[in-house]
């Protein structure tokens, strides 16, 4: 990065750190923070969509659809989320390969499960074994995002289902009195009003999602935990930047990062709550109206 970084062993402390913290691997470490933020940015809307679909299904008048919705929301109850993460990564991978196998090699006769092995034909390997490295990484990341979205979608479905029931019945009756259909009442009356009831639960969920991101490490993605362990480990003098075991300091850095994320989220969600309370038939909305009048 800097010109004086040619021979780090001759540098004094401040310059040594300037060089150390800007070398190649550290930039990959910094990039992995972006990976985490990317995961949050993709997972949050997808999980919300899953949750919305799940909550709608649980309210459905069609019994099988309602059972699916209920099962989905009940799925995460009582079971540690990390078990889901570990399960879905392998299960999704195998499901995709099995589908690809059915499509690509219809005349394959050997069983796919041979004892302790899961064997599909070469054409059905996902990603292809000769694919470049970034495809493998992107595939891993995609599976991780999807897994997060499924698990957090179930949590969100639970929250949104409660929020839909919390909208005062009178509001919906007014819609019916105006001759709106079931669908119209749902989209025009229920959905715009439910968010303020869902917000406490959803903001809680967002905090949890932030705190669940280190689990990416367990899903085989090179995330910040991976790099903190990798970079913090002690380096002998054979390396360009020898140092003792610094993992403690790297993890302290991560701790501060997460605390910062939590604090910022708290402030932003507080503002969002005030914004959404405007004109609502709740205590907060009433207070705002009185303060304005």
């Amino acid at each position: 990065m800097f010109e004086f970084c040619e021979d780090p062993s001759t540098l004094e402390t401040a310059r040594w750190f300037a060089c150390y913290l800007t070398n190649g691997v550290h930039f990959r470490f910094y990039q992995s923070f972006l990976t985490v933020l990317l995961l949050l940015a993709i997972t949050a809307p997808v999980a919300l969509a899953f949750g919305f679909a799940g909550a709608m299904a649980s309210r459905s008048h069609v019994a099988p659809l309602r059972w699916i919705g209920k099962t989905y929301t009940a799925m995460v109850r009582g079971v540690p989320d990390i078990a889901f993460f570990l399960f879905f990564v392998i299960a999704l991978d195998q499901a995709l390969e099995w589908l690809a196998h059915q499509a690509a090699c219809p005349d394959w006769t050997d069983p796919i499960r041979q004892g302790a092995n899961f064997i599909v034909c070469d054409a059905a390997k996902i990603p292809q074994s000769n694919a470049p490295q970034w495809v493998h990484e992107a595939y891993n990341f995609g599976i991780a995002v999807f897994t997060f979205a499924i698990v957090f979608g179930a949590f969100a479905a639970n929250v949104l289902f409660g929020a839909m029931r919390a909208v005062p019945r009178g509001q919906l009756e007014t819609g019916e009195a105006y001759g709106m259909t079931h669908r119209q009442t749902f989209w025009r009356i229920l959905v715009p009003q439910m968010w303020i009831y869902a917000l406490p639960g959803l903001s809680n969920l967002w905090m949890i999602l932030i705190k669940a991101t280190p689990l990416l490490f367990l899903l085989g993605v090179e995330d910040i935990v991976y790099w903190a362990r990798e970079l913090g480990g002690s380096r002998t003098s054979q390396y360009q930047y020898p140092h003792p075991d610094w993992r403690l300091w790297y993890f302290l850095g991560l701790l501060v990062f997460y605390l910062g994320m939590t604090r910022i989220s708290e402030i932003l969600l507080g503002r969002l709550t005030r914004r959404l309370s405007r004109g609502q038939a709740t205590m907060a909305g009433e207070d705002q109206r009185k303060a304005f009048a």
Partner: protein
Amino acid sequence: MSCLQTIQDYGLRSLGYGERLLPRGDITLCEQFTLIGSGMIWNVYFGALALMSGFFFAVALAVAKNSRPWITRKPAEWFIFIFRGSPLFIQFFLAYETFVLLPRVGIDINLGFAEITAETRWFARAWLGALIVLFLNTSAYAAEIFYGALRSVPKGDLEAADAYGLTGWTRFRRVVFPTTMRLAWPSYTNEAIFLFHATTLVYFSGFPAFQQKGDALYYAQYFADRTFNPFIPYPIVAGYFVILTLCIIMLFGMINARLNRHLPSETRSRLRYRPNLIR
């Protein structure tokens, strides 16, 4: 090999008794059930001990956070913020790296009948190190719940206490504390459930499983890696945890009923399990 034999061999495997080698080759359903069940011992151990010790610390923290003087309030606020604001996973890593760096010394403790040597090395072992992290973590979460409940103790209760001339410790013990518990108990039940779920993180977070003595999820992952078939071990873990969760709900429900025993039975608040918390 019969299933009974398997249970004898692997029933206490997670504590280091029985067969040393884990099953390999053809793995039977019985072996999976037994070994994963044996791992549950650790989950229950971590959860139960952290919860019981954390309860008292949490009450103290909640009272400290609610107190007027700066010197007690600020540390409690910071403690709660740090442990609730950061992932448990990172806390485990951080604690492990810290404990590893501790100087290796042993302290002899005379128990009267036997002498044991307490070593600082124990901190880097899961049974003590992870327990400490879980204890601090659950204290912070429970303290926030108790603090919220403490703030919503009805004004009338306090006025009634004043009218009876209760002050200080007596007022806290007779009026404030019982009401706080009553208000906080449903949320505290959820916290307990999630603490038990969080115990599955221990062996994935730096703390090594010595001689493959791990918890339920550790063994489940072992089987999933061996057989490359996730559809058996993970549902077994799920089943065990559903049973554990039901036991917790039952136990806490009984305590809840005891806390609210003065109320007519219709108006008692029933425990509702709302799972929307993980760390």
